[in-house]
C-alpha cells in the first residue's frame, strides 16, 4: 500500500532523513523508535508533504500506486484526511485555539463526506466516545485550552480517524495519556487496523508501547533506519549497538522493593547525545557514541540481513553468543 524508495530529505544541504526502502502492506503496523532528534517525525511528515518548508525532498513515496512526492498540493490534501489520517506530535499546536472542539471534529468529517448535519453530529459523538473522552456535551462546547493535555491529544486522534483512513500516521499519539487511557487508545487503534485493514505508522519513544501495537519495528538514528525487523526479535535479539543501548535506557515498571524509589542508579541513558543535523559522523551515524566502534564503522555501512525479516546496519553487531545489554 505504501512504498518508500530512496527517500532523501535535506535541510540547508544537510541530510536529515534517508530511507532506501520501506514497505507497508494493507493493515500492517510498523513502529518507529529512536531518540529525540533522530529523524522520526521528519520521515513520517514527509510522507504527507508536511516537512519543514526549508526541507528538500527527493525519491519516491507511492501510496496505492500514486506517487506522493511532487503531487499537487490540492490532490495531496484530498488524500490526507480521506485516505491517510495524521495524529501530529504536538496537540497544542495542532488545534485551532479559537474554534470549539465539536466544530473542529465536525469539519474533519464534512471535509470528505456529504453527510447531513444530524449524521455529522452523531458521528462527532461516536468519535468522542471512541477515544474515551468523558462528558461529550461539555467537550463539544469547549475550546482547546479548556481541556487537559491528554484530552486534547484524544481530540486529535478522533479527528485523524474521523474518515476511517486506509493509513494512519500517528506521531507520539499517547505521550500525554495515563496508562489506562493509553491502553484503551492503543486497543482502539489495533481494532481499527484489524477491522478496517488500516495500516499504521506509529512513532513512539516507548519500545513497550510499540511492541504492543506493531508487528514490525524500525529503529531510527541519524535519519536512517538502523535496524528493522519483527518487534519481538528486535527487542529480544537486537543486533545494532544503538538498539541495544536504547533498550537498556527504557524505564521499566519496578517489580520489587529494591527497584522502587530513590534507586536512580538503575536508570541508564544512551551515552552522549544526538548530534545536531550536519554533525553526524560519516559511515555509521552512531559510531562516535558507540563503545564497540571498529575501523570499518568509518565507511558507508549498508543494510545487512541478520535473519529472515531482520535487517541492520551495524559493523560490529551483537553476536548470538553475546548477551545483549538488556536487563529486561
Amino acid at each position: 500500500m505504501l512504498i518508500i524508495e530512496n527517500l532523501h530529505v535535506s535541510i540547508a544541504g544537510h541530510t536529515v532523513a534517508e530511507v532506501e526502502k520501506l514497505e507497508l502492506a494493507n493493515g500492517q503496523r510498523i513502529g518507529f523508535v529512536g531518540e529525540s532528534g533522530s529523524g522520526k517525525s521528519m520521515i513520517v511528515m514527509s510522507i504527507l508533504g508536511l516537512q519543514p518548508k526549508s526541507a528538500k525532498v527527493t525519491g519516491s513515496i507511492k501510496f496505492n500506486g500514486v506517487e506522493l512526492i511532487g503531487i499537487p498540493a490540492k490532490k495531496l490534501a484530498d488524500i490526507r484526511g480521506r485516505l491517510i489520517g495524521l495524529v501530529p506530535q504536538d496537540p497544542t499546536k495542532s488545534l485551532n485555539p479559537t474554534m470549539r472542539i465539536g466544530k473542529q471534529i465536525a469539519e474533519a468529517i464534512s471535509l470528505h463526506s456529504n453527510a447531513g448535519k444530524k449524521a455529522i453530529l452523531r458521528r462527532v459523538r461516536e468519535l468522542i466516545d471512541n477515544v474515551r473522552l468523558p462528558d461529550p456535551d461539555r467537550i463539544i462546547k469547549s475550546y482547546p485550552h479548556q481541556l487537559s493535555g491528554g484530552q486534547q491529544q484524544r481530540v486529535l486522534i478522533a479527528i485523524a480517524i474521523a474518515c476511517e483512513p486506509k493509513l494512519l500516521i500517528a506521531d507520539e499519539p499517547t505521550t500525554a495519556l495515563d496508562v489506562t487511557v493509553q491502553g484503551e487508545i492503543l486497543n482502539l487503534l489495533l481494532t481499527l487496523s484489524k477491522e478496517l485493514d488500516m495500516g499504521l505508522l506509529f512513532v513512539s519513544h516507548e519500545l513497550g508501547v510499540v511492541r504492543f501495537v506493531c508487528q514490525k519495528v524500525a529503529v531510527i538514528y541519524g535519519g536512517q533506519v538502523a535496524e528493522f525487523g519483527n518487534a519481538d526479535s528486535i527487542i529480544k535479539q537486537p543486533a545494532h549497538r544503538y538498539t541495544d543501548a536504547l533498550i537498556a535506557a527504557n524505564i521499566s515498571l519496578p517489580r520489587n522493593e529494591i527497584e522502587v524509589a530513590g534507586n536512580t542508579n538503575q536508570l541508564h541513558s544512551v551515552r552522549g547525545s544526538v548530534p545536531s543535523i550536519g554533525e553526524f559522523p560519516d559511515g555509521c551515524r552512531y559510531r562516535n557514541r558507540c563503545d564497540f566502534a571498529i575501523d570499518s564503522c568509518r565507511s558507508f555501512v549498508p543494510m545487512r540481513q541478520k535473519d529472515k525479516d531482520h535487517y541492520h546496519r551495524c559493523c560490529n553487531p551483537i553476536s548470538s553468543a553475546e548477551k545483549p545489554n538488556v536487563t529486561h
Partner: protein
Amino acid sequence: MSHIDVKNFYFSYAPRSARETGIWTLSNLNFSVEAGGFLGIVGESGSGKSTLIRNLCGLLPITEGHVHIDGCNLASLSAREMIDLRRKIQLIYQNPKRSFDPRMRIGRSISQPIRSLEKRAPSDEELANLLASVGLQAEHLNRFPHELSGGQLQRIAIARALSVRPGILLADEPTSALDVSVQAQALKMIAELREQLKLTVVLVSHDLAVVGRVTDSIIVLKDGVIVEAGNTANVLLNPQHAYTQKLAEAAAVVSL
C-alpha cells in the same frame, strides 16, 4: 510541620455551579508532604493533576479549604508574601520547548526569575555555575532555544527553576515529552539535586515506571478525588483500589 499541607480542599473552574451541583474539578483533597519529601501524583488524564499543581503555587484560586506552605495559608497571603512564595515554589512544565521564549538567548531566559524575584541582574559567573549544576557549559548561554535539544532545554528549565533557591519544586510531567534516554538523565538530575539542596519535590507523571523509580510516596487521583495514597512501594506493588490496580496492570502490559 509539613512543608505542604492540603486540607479539605476543593476546586472548580466554575465555583458557583460547583457549589450548586456538588461537581468539583478537585474534591475534598487531604494530604501533606514533609520537608525533603518526594511526592508523586499519578492519575487519569483529566483527573485534575495539572489543576492541583497550579493551585499549589497560587496560579489558581482555591475554592474551598486550605493549602498551607511552610505553615502559611495560601489564601490569606499579602502581596509581599505572595512574591516570597513565588521564590519558594518553582514550577517546571511538560514541554521544555514551550517554556522558553524562542527569541531570547538562554542566558537571558535563565536570568528572568532572579531579575523579577530578587530585583537584580545575575553575574555571568553565577549563570555559568547554574548551567554547570545541570551538566551544561557556559557556551550554552549564548544559544537560542531551537539550537538545543529537548533534553538540554529541560535541564536548563530545571536550572532556571533552582536559580532562586526554592524549597519546593513542582514538576508537571517534566519528562513525558522527552525520549527514554533523556528521561533517565532528567530524572537522575532531579533526584540528585533534591538530595544536595534538600528540596521538597512534587512530581506529576502519567508514567508509573517513572514515578515508581524516584518518589517516596504517591497519591492516585481519579475524577478529582484521591482514591489511594501511601508509600510508593506499597501503592505500586500492592495496590488496593480498583483503579490503581487497573493502572498497574495497564502499565505492566506496555513495560518491557
